[in-house]
């Protein structure tokens, strides 16, 4: 535990000593600010159809997905690729650390950073609560969905980062895998066979996120996102084990 935590801490130092973290945070806040503006204008428009405007925060707009798909690879690309490029991986893996501890530590650091990104959005919720009635259930479920999606995508990114010593290539691989995971659900509409349609529907991240934002915490979604995430973390540890042999 202590050793894993040491890696988390080191990784956070690395995040916040690079300009990348601040660029990502700024971009994220700009995007969320815009969405907040949309929400407020919805609320001010008497012709708005009845809906919970905060759903827009959680996957209700394409911005959310674009942002996740672009930013998660940026968060994770450095994790292990940079260790391999600079040779520090040799120092890590000649300490009494297992590959799994290294992967988990790195991944947790990315997760902490991701949570940190979302933290300021709580302010928006507080502001809205002062001026209107907010149903907190869907908001909490929305945050659960955001965390789960982060878990899944960051695990993919961590895995991609073990595959190469080039950060850019790691980011591109992560992006490609995430696009595949994301678009599995979109392909659903094109399927004729109902079995296939159901299977793909089960993996549709968009509708899963939509459910969360409506306040539905469906255990199937939870299990799907967690298990795929864990699978990628496992692959990351294995890939690290094999890569150092060469």
């Amino acid at each position: 535990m202590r050793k894993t935590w040491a890696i988390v801490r080191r990784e956070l130092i690395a995040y916040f000593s690079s300009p990348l973290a601040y660029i990502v945070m700024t971009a994220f806040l700009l995007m969320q600010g815009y969405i907040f503006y949309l929400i407020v204008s919805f609320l001010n428009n008497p012709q708005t159809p009845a809906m919970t405007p905060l759903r827009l925060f959680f996957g209700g707009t394409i911005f959310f997905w674009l942002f996740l798909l672009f930013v998660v690879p940026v968060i994770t690309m450095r994790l292990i690729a940079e260790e391999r490029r600079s040779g520090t991986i040799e120092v890590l893996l000649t300490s009494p650390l297992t590959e799994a501890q290294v992967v988990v530590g790195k991944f947790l650091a990315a997760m902490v950073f991701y949570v940190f990104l979302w933290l300021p959005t709580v302010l928006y919720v507080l502001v809205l609560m002062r001026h209107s009635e907010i149903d907190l259930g869907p908001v909490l479920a929305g945050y659960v969905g955001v965390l789960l999606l982060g878990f899944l995508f960051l695990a993919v990114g961590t895995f991609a980062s073990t595959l190469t010593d080039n950060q850019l290539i790691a980011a591109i691989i992560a992006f490609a895998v995430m696009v595949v995971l994301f678009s599995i659900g979109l392909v659903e509409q094109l399927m004729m066979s109902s079995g296939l349609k159901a299977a793909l529907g089960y993996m549709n991240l968009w509708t899963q996120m939509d459910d969360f934002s409506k306040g539905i915490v469906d255990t199937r979604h939870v299990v799907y996102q967690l298990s795929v995430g864990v699978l990628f973390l496992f692959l990351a540890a294995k890939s690290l084990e094999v890569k150092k042999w060469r």
Partner: protein
Amino acid sequence: MIEVENLGKTYVEEPVVRDLSFFVPEGQVLGFLGPNGAGKTTVMRMLTAFLPPTTGRVVVAGVDLDKDPVALRRNVGYLPENVPLYPEMRVDEYLRFRADVEEVPRAEVRERIDDVAEQCLIADVSRQVIGTLSKGYRQRVGLAGALIHRPPVLILDEPTVGLDPNQIIKVRELITGLGRDHTVLLSTHILPEVEQVCERVFIIDRGRIVADGAPDALRTKLVGNPTVAVELAGADGAATEALQRLPGVVAVSEQGEGHWLLEHGPDADPREAVFHLAVEKGWVLLGLSPEKATLEDVFVRLTTREEVAVVERAEEVSHA
């Protein structure tokens, strides 16, 4: 302390290390010498449980690599080639991180950091960002990191590469000091370094040990007896014979007009006798210089041969 038996490593059918066996007793400072690509780094990576060997057995400080690689890593401090560090961290942050992953007891962390910082002469830069340090400081920060858990065995891959002469001297002194309570294995291709720092030398070529012994023993064994070059004016034809008769001289060869080369036993020094002989005979002594064969000669001889035969090992250094 380090036991290696029939160690071998093969990359895609290409043997990089072949059938290496050796033993390093506790407290010895051992130099790994060899041309680039000889397999030094590969051997070190196997001894630190970074790379799994293809064949053979490695035991470091009583721990078998096969049985418990993580425990083996606890006993080894490793400084990889080119000293990889995290440039964005401060020196004390880095040492703290190393202390945590190397399982230094929590209560001792602060003290150990201060200890290694003092030992490695980096206490004055402890709040500096590593990326802004000079190469010499970085080298010592890396070394401090490798020492933080007080490992019985230290493995240093080319610890003085890229340093300026003053820094090299500092790092060498440091290593010599470490040899007092650690078993140290260091690799280098700088020959004088080995002669200064190490009690014992391995010369490795193409994945094999081609020589093993104390630097002095290797020199004598592989190059032959030490020699003295003598230059005389006014000496007659009988000079060769007269020189030959001096005590301790094993052989004399005439190197041209007025020049002789005396080969003498490792413990004898015939220079005084040469002087007295010249005085007695009325010759003018123009030059008298000992020509110690360097390890360089041994190295070149061993590693440039077409087919390197494994040289019989020089006597085991009696440090055990």
